């Protein structure tokens, strides 16, 4: 085996050899080598995640600026690439203010939890076929479990700040996030069903044809509810600037605020990576069998394309109203994902070994999409008619003249 065939394993074995010699020499317990190797792996993955944030903040500002016909950061360094470092230095030297009456413990833990809940997802991301942090057989369940901690951090931050805006933000956040978790989990179930495994790497290996072809509607449901999960425009009710100033992190200053921002950016990228893994074949691509390291390039390319779409949605759509938000989730996304689950399960079982398996599933998705559009049109028209029976605009009624006493 040469270094180019599988450099990660090569380096791993090489380090293990050295460490084993050292451990033998010092008479340490047998598991030490394993522990140190795991520790190095963890630090590499976690550092990669956090360094990515610095780049992502710059990218987000640059792309958002171009969407709005501006230049974005362009002073600090070439293309303003050092802007994020400047921001980081500024945040780190800012005074840390805790409002009086805040619940100190949860106030301080919330930012940590916000980042930790996101970065923990990276533990199961398969970068290449062999380079997987932890190839556990309940990967999808792990992602769902860890991702839910983000909601907890939002609630803790909002509740402990002793601020009414923050509390309103936390209420909205919890209502929104737990609601959108339902279609998210249901859409997450469909790649599991198609791959017959919850292991992330098994799901990637099962994607001879990408799951986005077999399940385009669940992909859209997944992406939409994920955007709602990260709380970005059009679903940014938890931090709506024009309504509740900044929502749950209004009282945070300095690096604690920075950590919320870092968590949000990293979360946005993480769901892009997850979309790439679950629906776009992860590390799969041409030539990946000979050079496994190409898998990282493919995965990151797919992730950045999805991330670009997320940014695009953010700069295009306005914020939705809260009753529309809840109705969109419970009356549209949840029923649709239930229907998709039933359709996919039945068809996948009925035509398991059929030669047209892919086409049948794709066709079923198209049919369901067309029926959904038709239902939406009919109900929309009915709503319009209902509205027509009432006066279209509220008419100002002049106040009654009071009878002279």
């Amino acid at each position, binding site marked *: 085996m040469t270094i180019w065939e599988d450099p990660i394993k090569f380096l791993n074995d090489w380090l293990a050899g050295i460490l084993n010699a050292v451990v033998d020499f010092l008479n340490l317990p047998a598991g030490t080598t394993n*522990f140190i190797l*795991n520790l190095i792996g*963890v*630090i590499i*993955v976690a*550092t990669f995640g956090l360094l990515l944030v610095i780049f992502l903040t710059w990218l987000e500002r640059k792309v958002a600026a171009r969407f709005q016909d501006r230049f974005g950061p362009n002073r600090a360094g070439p293309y303003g690439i050092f802007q994020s470092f400047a921001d980081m230095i500024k945040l*780190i*030297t800012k*005074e*840390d*203010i*805790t*409002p*009086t*009456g805040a619940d100190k413990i949860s106030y301080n833990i919330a*930012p*940590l939890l916000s*980042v*930790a809940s996101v*970065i*923990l997802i990276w*533990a199961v991301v398969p970068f290449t076929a062999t380079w997987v942090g932890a190839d556990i057989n309940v990967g999808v*369940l*792990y992602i769902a479990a860890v991702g839910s901690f983000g909601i907890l951090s939002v609630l803790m931050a909002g509740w402990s*700040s*002793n*601020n*009414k*805006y923050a*509390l309103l933000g936390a*209420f909205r956040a919890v*209502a929104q996030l*737990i609601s959108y978790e*339902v279609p998210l*989990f249901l859409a997450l*179930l469909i790649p*599991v069903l198609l791959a*017959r*495994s*919850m292991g992330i790497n098994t799901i990637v290996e099962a994607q001879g044809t990408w799951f986005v072809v077999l399940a385009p509607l669940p992909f859209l449901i997944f992406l939409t509810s994920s955007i709602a999960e990260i709380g970005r425009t059009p679903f940014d009710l938890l931090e709506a600037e024009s309504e509740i*100033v900044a929502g749950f992190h*209004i*009282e945070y200053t*300095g*690096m*604690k605020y*920075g*950590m919320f921002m870092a968590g949000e950016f990293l979360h946005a990228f993480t769901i892009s990576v997850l979309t790439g893994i679950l629906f776009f074949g992860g590390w799969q691509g041409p030539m990946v069998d000979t050079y496994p390291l190409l898998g990282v390039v493919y995965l990151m390319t797919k992730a950045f394309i999805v991330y670009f779409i997320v940014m695009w949605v953010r700069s295009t759509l306005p914020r939705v109203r809260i*009753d529309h938000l*809840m*109705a969109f989730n*419970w*009356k549209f996304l*949840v*029923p649709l994902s*239930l229907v998709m*689950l*039933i359709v996919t*399960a039945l068809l996948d*079982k009925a035509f398991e070994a059929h030669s047209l398996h892919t086409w049948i599933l794709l066709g079923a998705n198209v049919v369901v999409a067309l029926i959904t559009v038709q239902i939406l049109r009919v109900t929309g028209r009915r709503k319009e008619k209902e509205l027509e029976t009432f006066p279209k605009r509220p008419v100002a009624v002049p106040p009654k003249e009071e009878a002279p006493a």
Partner: protein
Amino acid sequence: MLDNWLFIGIFVLIAAAFPAAPIIINYLIAPRKPNPIKQDTYECGIETVGDTWVQFKVQYYIYALVFLIFDVETVFLYPWAVAFDRLALFAVVEGVIFILILAAGLIYAWRQGVLEWT
């Protein structure tokens, strides 16, 4: 297998330590000049009236209940999806009936007007 859980175990510690580091550095090097006005709760320039920790709308609670039902049911469906290969068509149909019962709950909540945000 156990190795992978060791990895995640270490990851939990590192994931808590990495965001903690900048916050601690911030705490050490940032200036500290507290005064009562600065530490006051932010609210459009005047002092907050009344208690912040108020009672909240019952609507949130109802949504949480509906969420709980759906979430638990979804978790039950995951093993069903994993064992899909070993299931006969009959077992798949049973799973579908399970989902339909779930959908009946959603329709009930819908008809009751629970999903209306007021």
